[in-house]
């Protein structure tokens, strides 16, 4: 599996902010439980989280939701600044974090315009019984290191291995393959806001969708384009009945 470029399409017009993806991610990736103190210290870690932005005033008030997760940028600002190569770009377009390597300078987090890198300020802890749930495929991070969305790399690898063991490649058509491959958030998303697949695969529906929406001035756009990070995630604009056109120029 070398020539993939895993990417996501997020259709903001479908997102209802239901938080299913958030919890799914927590349980798949052994993200520490965000207890009340963590929230109050502003140290809650949610690899994917829904941000809510207000617009207008009552009664024409609007609240808009956007799921924000690691954009796995092609020119990730977090990568060059890590002194110890704890974060790097792998062959399938993923921005990977090597927990063992990380020494916790938090430089990457500062240089991430999307603020999707989370730091283990404390030693994550679970009650004995809850530890039974922890996912054996994913490291339990210790304190003092950076962590972030991996596009559920463990699932990608597993799916790849299974496919190989059956002597075939992962196919977009094969629903079960996709279920095994998709990140936890994508699998859970009730409205299909989140869509995930290899953007280098010309046959892939999702790759086509992303391409079309981006090219022929469709709804596609990248987050914070003027930072030149070239994210792997394509957002589709929210559709609003009473939106003015001039906003598109932004």
């Amino acid at each position, binding site marked *: 599996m070398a020539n993939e470029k895993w990417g996501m399409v997020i259709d903001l017009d479908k997102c209802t902010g239901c938080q299913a993806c958030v919890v799914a991610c927590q349980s798949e990736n052994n993200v520490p439980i965000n207890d009340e103190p963590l929230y109050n210290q502003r140290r809650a870690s949610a690899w994917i989280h829904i941000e809510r932005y207000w617009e207008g005033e009552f009664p024409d008030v609007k609240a808009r939701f956007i799921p*924000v997760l690691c954009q796995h940028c092609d020119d990730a600002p977090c990568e060059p600044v890590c*002194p110890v190569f704890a974060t790097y770009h792998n062959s399938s377009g993923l921005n990977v974090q090597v927990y063992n390597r990380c020494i916790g300078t938090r430089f990457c987090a500062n240089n991430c*315009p999307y603020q999707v890198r989370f730091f283990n300020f404390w030693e994550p802890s679970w009650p004995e019984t809850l530890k039974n749930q922890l996912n054996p495929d994913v490291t339990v991070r210790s304190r003092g290191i950076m962590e972030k969305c991996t596009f559920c790399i463990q699932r990608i690898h597993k799916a790849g291995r299974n496919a190989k063991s059956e002597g075939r490649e992962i196919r977009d058509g094969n629903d079960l393959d996709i279920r095994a491959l998709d990140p936890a958030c994508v699998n859970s998303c009730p409205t299909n806001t989140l869509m995930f697949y290899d953007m280098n695969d010309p046959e892939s529906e999702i790759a086509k969708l992303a391409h079309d929406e981006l090219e022929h001035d469709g709804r596609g756009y990248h987050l914070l384009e003027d930072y030149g990070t070239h994210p792997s995630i394509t957002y589709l604009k929210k559709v609003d009945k009473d939106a003015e056109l001039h906003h598109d120029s932004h």
Partner: protein
Amino acid sequence: MQEYIEHGPKKINRDLLAGVLGLPRWWMPIASVALLVILIAMCAYGWELNRGIGVAGINRPVYWGFYLANFVFWIGISHAGIMVSAILRLTQAEWRRPVTRAAEVLTLFSLLAALSNIFFHLGRPWRFLWIPPYDFARGVWPNVRSPFIWDPSAIGTYLIGSSLFVFIALIPDLAVIRDRVSGKTAKRVYGFLSLGWRGTPRQWKLQTVAGILLSALVLPVFVSVHSIVSWDFAVNVSVEGWHSTIFAPYFIIGAIHSGVSAVAMVMALMVWGWKLENYITRDHFDAIGRLLIVVATTWFFFFALEFFYAIYTLEDPEIALRTMQVFEWPYGPMFFVFIVASYFIPVPLWLLKNVRRSPMGMFLTTISVNIGMWLERFLIIIPGLARKTPFTFDWGTYHPSIVEISLVCFTFAFVTLGVLVFSKFFPLVPIFDVKEGEVFRDEIKVGRRTVPASIRE
């Protein structure tokens, strides 16, 4: 008018070695207070190691806090030594002579203090060994693109360079102490350190050349160190407040500003502590005062440029950041204090001759400068992070924890203690330099007045 006191070598030795052979009365109490602070702070650090960096006040998105502000501050102070001794030596400023050593020692200890902050800052300090490139066996290398790799290299070089600097300038004085100190072991130690200095012309020539060479060589390092420190911030594309091209010169000039002020401060303290008013005269304060006016004004120019061009971009986070910096509690008052304390109080005062020429005046003004400059570092780092990128949803704030505060106190206590201990074993004023100064001093008769003059080789 310049006053000028002829001492003669004997008196010079006696006065300048007073601190080494004897011990001022205030030395013990102050040193022990500093030591106490250090011990307390070390307990705090132990707590941090034990519980994790969570005991600090940092959060998301303000991932950097007091430690790095303090780091930058001490790196800034460390520029004093080289500034004073190297540049002034190259430009043959006569007034440098009695203050060089103190400045260099300040450099040394503030560098160490700065380094300690790195360890406080790391999430897993016990893994700092990943930074130096030693893990060849597994083909794991540090990332040379990262300013955090440039930093250790530059600072390390700077540390070595400035220690050499101090040592070379020490050799003749060590010999003097060697000849005066009583006690076998002390004699042996000083004898060893002074590398068999006999004061032969050849030795003198070597020592002088080495000094000049080192000053020339250390200057680029001196520039690179703080440029790199500034790039720790300036390369952050996503923190508009930091991503400014002016940072390197701005930090350097800021460093010189705070550094030279610190030197002036130390000069005043030396005058009071070791009764050196005959060596560090009002002329010296006058000279450093003039220098400071120029430095401060240049610094202010760069500050203005930095600030204007930040708003020049007209980007929302940038505007929000500046509003926060200047108007919002608690940053607004801090900003006011910073700008007033580091420029608008001292510089007008320095323009007054009486202030320039009085140790007390210089002491107070330079203290205020350093308070201001500490705040400057804080105001660059924290608001920048608290208002980075248009993601208003994640904008945050920062409150330092008690651990951070005590570790900041640690650095101050550490430098104080360091300088004090140094002063116990080595003279804070370079004896040979002062003597040289006396020799090079001369006068010219012009009509009825005599004009002080200096001999140029």
